[in-house]
């Protein structure tokens, strides 16, 4: 599927471009990160429980199902974070890399 969420209005807003898993994604100013990702894609993130992909649930910051990551390693709640130009978002948890002390 292309986009999961369907825009029903309020489309006359400035466009912004962010990056998701390295690919450019166009959203509208005022979108949450969740809407930015789900208006062009079908899922938000890889589930940490091994049961596939998730796309959020409560949209009000309670369910813990919409966490995404920035390339810098921060965790963001997609439902309550505004999408902003230049964001670089990852939909899978970045692997921790341990220094090789050998």
């Amino acid at each position: 599927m292309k986009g999961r969420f369907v825009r029903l209005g309020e489309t006359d807003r400035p466009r912004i471009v962010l990056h998701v898993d390295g690919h450019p994604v166009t959203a509208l100013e005022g979108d949450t990160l969740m809407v930015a990702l789900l208006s062009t894609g079908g899922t938000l993130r890889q589930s940490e429980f091994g049961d596939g992909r998730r796309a959020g649930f409560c949209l009000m910051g309670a369910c813990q199902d919409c966490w995404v990551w920035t390339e810098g390693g921060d965790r963001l709640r997609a439902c309550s974070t505004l999408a902003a130009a230049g964001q670089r978002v990852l939909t899978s948890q970045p692997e921790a890399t341990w220094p090789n002390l050998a």
Partner: protein
Amino acid sequence: MAEPRIIIVGAGPSGVRAAEAVVKAGLRPIVIDEARRAGGQIYRRQPDNFTRPYKKLYGTEAARAKALHESFDALQGQIDYLPETLVWNVADQHVWTASGNAQQTLPYDALILCTGATDRLMPVKGWNLAGTYSLGGAQVALKSQAVSIGREVVFMGSGPLLYLVASQYVQAGAKVAAVLDTSASGARVRALPDLLALPSVLWNGVQLTRALAKAGVPVHHQITPVEVVGAADSGVTAVRYRTASGAEKMIACDAVAVGYQPPPRNPARRPCSLRIRLRPSHASLATAARRGRPRQCEGRLPRRGRRENPRRSLGRGERKTRRARRAFRSRPGCKRR
């Protein structure tokens, strides 16, 4: 004596009115809000650059929503407002807060909790698939972001919110594949005097079901949810349910909004209005309910836990909260039992 430090948690209808009362008493409260803007859930504000008028967004609640937002805006400068801040613990006359990566503990002399309510949920097989949302979540998507949660949405559960959100979706131009009601009859939607969160005119069963019928949305009663069907990587493709007669049916869809009617409250407890009574000498809650002429509460009452209905299964969020609470209480160095 130094001024009592008042903390209000929540900036929905209750929190805003509490802040007004405290300010009127000559004090400056701290108002802590998890959201970016005040308003809570029912009166959730759309982003600044959205253009939908209040009437379109809030329907019969438009005047109340406007009044609430304007009241809060008028409080700026007289309160300490902490948006996007989560209160995750209350102990030792402090609240523990988290905002982004920043943590803070704030002391209080009186604490007013206006944390509102959340959806009543019950797990169903497949509810973890991408495309399953709570009824409240489906409504937030529409009200706050002008989107539908999918191309073909099934609404499943019980209670007036089921019909309200489904009809709001239809009126906004979304495609609703079906409304699946676990309760026996739509007439029950009208006869719910104890649902304080929604003024009666909002959930007029006749109005709501008429809007759905006009749009040709099939409504099925007395169903039993069986499974949310779909693929692990791409999400929901259908909902399977059992009819009243026991036959199994399936409806194709790409999104499901689920939520159930809150448990019936004690009928002796009438709708009440809240008066804020300040007791600086007391450490805990400083609210008192005034039972007088029955009147609508402006906000939702706090959600009840399992004690009120032990047979209710815990929802996803609840299980996580309880696990976290248990882990926190048994952390090393914790003196409490």
